[in-house]
């Protein structure tokens, strides 16, 4: 680990000042400390934001949810409003990491977590994300767990977060505070596709601080849930996953929100699947037909072709779990 200066800030103004001077925010530290030890991350100064007042979950005026950036994963998962309004969020969180890590890690840090690609984590391997221009060892290396959607010739690493898949499905907004004040970024624009610049991963400008993630109100009743498929039953990242939310009224699907994880360079929204569902009546045949679109546009690598079918089946199964059948 490289040496670093440390400051603990007590309000957002102090945080932004330290951030503008190049300090790196540390929340739970479960991504940052790990990557600093591997010397993948080498910040010269850490700015500890744990004392900032960003630790509340509130229901918005319209009936959505406002989740403070420093709310711990465990707290968000257990929060009664999260559980009742958006089970897909609490399920995604409960299926993430371990109880210890969920006690430490925050919502803001979670969406900012970096890929688990082993070549990215290994400073002796070629990685365009870590070192622009170095090449991508995963492209022709061992790439069983890598992405099949949103990839480029420069990077095929997945975004590993589970709850970010739920946020993508629900069309969340990220609240951000910078030197020029507040702004909001739609979740769809927050995490960036690798393209030619895989080292650019998110829409934050220098020194900007995430203050909250907001989930919009959706028509009720809303049924939602998260399914995660992985190599072991728990404490493992997703091979494939699906976040689904459905609003069914009068026996007809009026709203469908679907996104998938473990397969994309960013959490992957499935508008074609959503369009296929809206206006239809729930049935096994509908789930199957809609899910057949889940891997549209996928580009499998040498070792992850299995994800195409696994993804379709994951989506189909989760549509059936959330939507039931009649």
């Amino acid at each position, binding site marked *: *680990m*490289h*040496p*670093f*200066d*440390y400051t*603990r800030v007590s309000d957002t103004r102090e945080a932004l000042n330290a951030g503008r001077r190049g300090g790196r925010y*540390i929340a739970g*530290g*479960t991504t940052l*400390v*790990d990557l*600093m*030890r*591997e*010397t993948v991350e*080498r910040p010269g100064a*850490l700015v*500890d934001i*744990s004392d900032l007042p960003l630790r509340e979950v509130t229901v918005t005026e319209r009936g959505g949810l406002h989740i403070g950036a420093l709310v711990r994963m465990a707290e968000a998962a257990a929060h009664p409003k999260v559980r009742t309004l958006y089970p897909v969020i609490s399920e995604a969180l409960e299926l993430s*990491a*371990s*109880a*210890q*890590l969920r*006690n*430490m890690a925050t919502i803001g840090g979670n969406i900012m977590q970096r890929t688990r690609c082993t070549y990215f984590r*290994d*400073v*002796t391997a070629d990685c365009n994300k870590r070192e622009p221009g170095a090449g991508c060892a995963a492209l022709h290396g061992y790439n069983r767990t890598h992405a099949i959607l949103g990839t480029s010739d420069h990077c095929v690493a997945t975004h590993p977060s589970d709850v970010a898949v739920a946020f993508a499905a629900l069309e969340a907004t990220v609240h951000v505070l910078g030197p020029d004040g507040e702004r909001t970024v739609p979740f769809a624009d927050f995490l960036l596709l690798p393209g030619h610049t895989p080292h650019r991963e998110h829409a934050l400008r220098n020194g900007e601080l995430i203050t909250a993630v907001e989930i919009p109100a959706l028509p009720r009743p809303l049924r939602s849930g998260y399914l995660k498929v992985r190599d072991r*039953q*728990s*404490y493992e990242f997703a091979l494939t996953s699906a976040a689904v939310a459905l609003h069914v009224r009068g026996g007809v699907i009026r709203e469908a929100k679907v996104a998938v994880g473990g397969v994309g360079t960013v959490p992957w929204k499935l508008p074609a699947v959503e369009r296929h569902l809206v206006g239809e009546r729930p049935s096994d045949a509908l789930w199957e037909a809609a899910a057949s679109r889940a891997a549209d546009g996928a580009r499998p690598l040498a070792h992850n072709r299995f994800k195409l079918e696994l993804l379709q089946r994951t989506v189909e199964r989760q549509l059936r779990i959330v939507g039931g059948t009649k």
Partner: protein
Amino acid sequence: MIAGGVTAGSALGDAQAAAEPAPTSRVALTVNGTRRTVTVDNRTSLLDLLREHFGLTGSKKGCNAGACGACTVLVDGQRVNSCLTLTVRLEGAEVTTIEGLADGDELHPLQQAFIEQDAFQCGYCTPGQIMSGVGCIKEGHTGSPEEIRESMSGNICRCGCYVKIVRAVEQTAGRK
């Protein structure tokens, strides 16, 4: 003292690191009921503080990356991975390790249950398992063996004692 782990790094970085003394901080925290004040290199993990500075070697270093749970301790009553916790952040914190669990000669009920259920072989994961089990019981995730297993999944046991570990947690939760 520098936190362990992968030492690979650029030669330039290491040269820079050697050129200037690494920043340190003074931290006052409570460990197993005793208040301690230390000056540490900012890089020192809580795990290394406990093991290397305080001689509390019960907490184990398995992966040093959050992936095994052998280093689990309680910070302000909550189970966390001490390998991913920087000491410099712990001003005023209360830390409980496996060494602080027993009440004098009286073992903590979960320690006793691990013995009664024969819930270990080599014992390497055991301090972490027990500290995690204390957290699991406190959090109330003991409704069924399945719930315990899921809530304890952050602790790997290479000897495969999972069934008996779950029984030990179940036994202790039941007695409360």
